[in-house]
């Protein structure tokens, strides 16, 4: 019984997913199979963040589920979106002066860092956290801002054009400091003796599942504990994976000339 209640099949996120998919298929010419797969993975993550029990429980029941949703929106979906952009087509887009200006602005490390880490901290100020969970309009604003902040955060690492990317070593410092940022937030939430997000401490039980959650051991105290740990450990694991990718990029960059030559040459794509 509970299982069916935990899925929200009629979520409006489907609309967004459909629009994104159509836009991608229409505009992202020259994409490779891998890029399409990454894009679909991103859409899947986005859908699951709202349709699956994570989304349902994040809606006022479990702080830890809210954290999972938060991480997916901020760290997973934006990476997938950026990595799915076909390099050649994207560099054509960003040759236009206006878009190039945006690209360059986003490539400033401080901008991305403040957006990414700031979004994490900002939405956990107790008042904002509760309001976002109670009012759908603020909730949508939060979710949207998380995805956008995520794009800004990952831009200096995975921007489709090389010129917007940080040097790999600077990228490592960027990600490591972000990891410290979310570690501090995670520690704070985990060990904070009071409720960080009051709405989760006394959920409005519209689905009639609170008791079964409590019986399963997910009391508000433990829930917040888990939420803090979710903010602490998985994001750092994501950053570490990304750092590994940067290290690979750094060690495999042969000489500079070859690299620039590769960029100027048309890259053959398998096309889908």
């Amino acid at each position, binding site marked *: 019984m509970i299982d069916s209640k935990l899925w929200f099949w009629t979520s409006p996120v489907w609309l967004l997913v459909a629009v994104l998919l159509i836009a991608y298929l229409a505009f992202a010419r020259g994409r490779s199979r891998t890029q399409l797969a990454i894009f679909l993975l991103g859409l899947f993550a986005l859908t699951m963040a709202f349709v699956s029990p994570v989304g349902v429980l994040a809606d006022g029941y479990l702080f830890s589920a809210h954290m999972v949703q938060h991480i997916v929106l901020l760290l997973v979906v934006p990476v997938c979106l950026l990595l799915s952009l076909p390099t050649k087509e994207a560099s054509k887009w960003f040759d236009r002066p206006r878009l190039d200006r945006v690209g360059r602005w986003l490539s400033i490390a401080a901008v991305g860092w403040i957006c990414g880490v700031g979004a994490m901290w900002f939405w956990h100020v*107790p008042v904002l956290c509760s309001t976002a969970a109670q009012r759908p309009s603020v909730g949508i604003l939060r979710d949207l801002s998380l995805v956008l902040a995520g794009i800004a955060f990952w831009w200096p690492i995975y921007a489709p054009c090389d010129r917007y990317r940080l040097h790999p*070593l600077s990228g*490592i410092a960027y990600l*490591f400091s972000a*990891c*410290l940022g979310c*570690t*501090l937030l995670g*520690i*704070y939430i*985990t*060990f*904070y*003796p*009071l409720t960080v997000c009051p709405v989760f401490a006394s959920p409005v039980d519209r689905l009639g599942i609170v008791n079964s959650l409590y019986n399963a051991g997910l009391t508000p105290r*433990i829930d917040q*504990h*888990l939420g803090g*740990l979710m903010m*602490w*450990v998985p994001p*750092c*694991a994501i950053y*570490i994976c990304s*750092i*590994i990718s940067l*290290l*690979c990029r*750094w*060690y*495999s*960059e*042969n*000489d*500079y000339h070859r690299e620039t030559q590769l960029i100027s040459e048309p890259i053959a794509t398998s096309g889908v």
Partner: protein
Amino acid sequence: MSTELIGQRETSAAESSWGILSWVTSVDHKRIGMLYILLAVFFLVVGGFEAVLIRIQLSIPNNTFLSPEVFNQLFTMHGTTMVFLVGMPMFTGFSNFLVPLMIGAKDVAFPRLNAMSFWMLPFGAFLLYFSFLTGSAPNAGWFAYAPLSTKPYSLGPGIDYWIVGLIVMGIGSIAAAINIVATVLTLRTPGMSLQRVPLFVWIMLMQAMLIVITIPPLNSALALLCVDRWLEAAFFEPIRGGSALLWQHFFWIFGHPEVYVFALPAFAMVSEIIPVFSRKPIYGYAFVAGSSTIILLLSYGVWAHHMFAVGLGTGANIFFSAMTMLIALPTGVKIFNWTATMWGGSIRFTTAMLFAIAFLIQFVIGGLTGVMFAAVPIDWQMTDTYFVVAHFHYVLIGGIIFAVFAAIYYWFPKFTGRMLDERLGKWQFWLWVVGFNGTFMIQHFLGAMGMPRRVYTYADNPGWALFNGISSFSVIFMVLGTLVLVWNVVKSLLKGELAGNNPWDAYTLEWATTSPPPEYNFKSLPEIKSRRPVWDKGHPELADWKSSKTPEDRGRRPDRAKVCGWTFVTSEAVFFVLLLATYIVFNVRHTGEGPTASTALNVPRTAVFSLFLLASSLTFWLSERNLRAGRHSASIRWLGVTILFGIIFLCGQAWEYAGLLTNDIYIDSNLFASTFFTVTGFHGLHVTAGLVALGIMFVLGRKNYLTKEHSKPFGAIGIYWHFVDVVWIFVFAIIYLGVFQP
């Protein structure tokens, strides 16, 4: 083609001689490196002697050779000595000696700072060991768990000596690490891109970075313990509202990465030795280097696995367990790299190689028992037993000390110009293999049988006497092995075979110069086109750069003053983060009597004074800009204004303090007062230090010594000054505005 580097450096008369004074006054990285190593060896003997006493006491059940008090002091001093006076200086010594040579530099980036870093160490050691003369050496374990280490439970001065000694040594270690970071980043010879540095250099860079961020948590904890013990605060006294667990958190935030501070150099050493004696380049350079970076990043997130038994909650245990298992991956990768390097190589079983191979095997055993401890239930069962003792001795001796022995045999010819005797070396090797495994392997079983650690004796339980006897008896082999090493060193120094430049036909730049190297290090350097320049020079037809390309050096080198500034500030930032965390922990919810931030502080007044501090950043920036543009007098004027603003801010703080003290709010009043005075006090101290630095610059400027050419060091002071201001923004937000209050 070679880069001529012939002696541009002035050689003073004192440095060219070999008298004691020349060693004391030396700023040459090689001599300082050797001083570090000699000091480490001396304390290895001292710490080893303490271990021998411990093992004599434990050799038979119900022994009364040592009293419980002396036993506690000995295991505390043994641990502290081995960590801070053997491990840290040993690796800093090797790093000091070898890193500049391997990157083709003439010295480290800051030679005088280097000498200061070293001399802090004997000073700290003296403080630590002086405690024996007071009759109460530290006795709370090397981890000094609170509340045992607080005043009510440790009245004597032992812990105080421990605290001060560790702070002094910690400052020296951070300074040395900053030096290594700056050296590697700024002084590499042309052609040596960061992707081409020898693995030793890269891993030591990672280790230095790790020291920079890992010592400050210890310093924070020590500072708090100091305030507890000397000023009667109660950070770590649960009975007065403090938290004993906070000490454990802070200590292990330092303590766990510290394990990697030791492990990384051992990895660095064997990563040089195994390829040379396998006659092959390292298998998977990028994997070894990259995984060291990952270790650096992950090591900071696993400290709580030392605390599974304190009741952090199932969630925390699971996450930390997973993280701990994760960190085994980058370490495990290296084992495969080293094994694969040996695979198919033409291996020369020199003493150095034998020690390196034994390192591999024993480190794997220590690592695997470490992974066992990552499983929470096993940890609960085994924690505080001899299984733990066996585990970390397999890592620290079987792994790390064996790697150090390998390194001694490998680099001794470079250090002294003479070879160590291989026959004696093999005697030492086998004595140590037998002694080490005999002593510690059996302790796994003792631990599994339930023998607790840190207890001065044990009952005559079945099997315990025999196993302990074997363990204690085996120590004799290690002692004999050490004597063989000492004899070998003395004999080789007197009449050892001459080494020549490159006795092992090795690959990296230190072998391109004479043994021992001249003071200026190199007469000429081979061209750097790959990771093995000396190999390329000796075997041009098989040169690495012909078969495998590595990223070219683009010649970019950051300014050393800037690197120093940023690294120092990073270290200080960690220190303040922990102090501020302490404030948050104790002030989230006001419980009990006494003042609080909202009742005791005058926020608007402090806000006004804060504006002066923030404005001083702006004025400093103007001063710096004018200096760069060559407008000397304007620069000095703005510098003067900066100092004035800083002083006004300090006056504001003094006013605040005076107000609190007249209202009978002292540092020991309650936890709010303790945290408030500690955080703002340390910040004030930093502002004062900044003002002293700015004052020196001001005086130099007035005498026209501060010119455009000095804008970079001036900028480094600026980094510090801006940092102090940024810290204040956080202090003000957290303490005065109470952003974390509900």
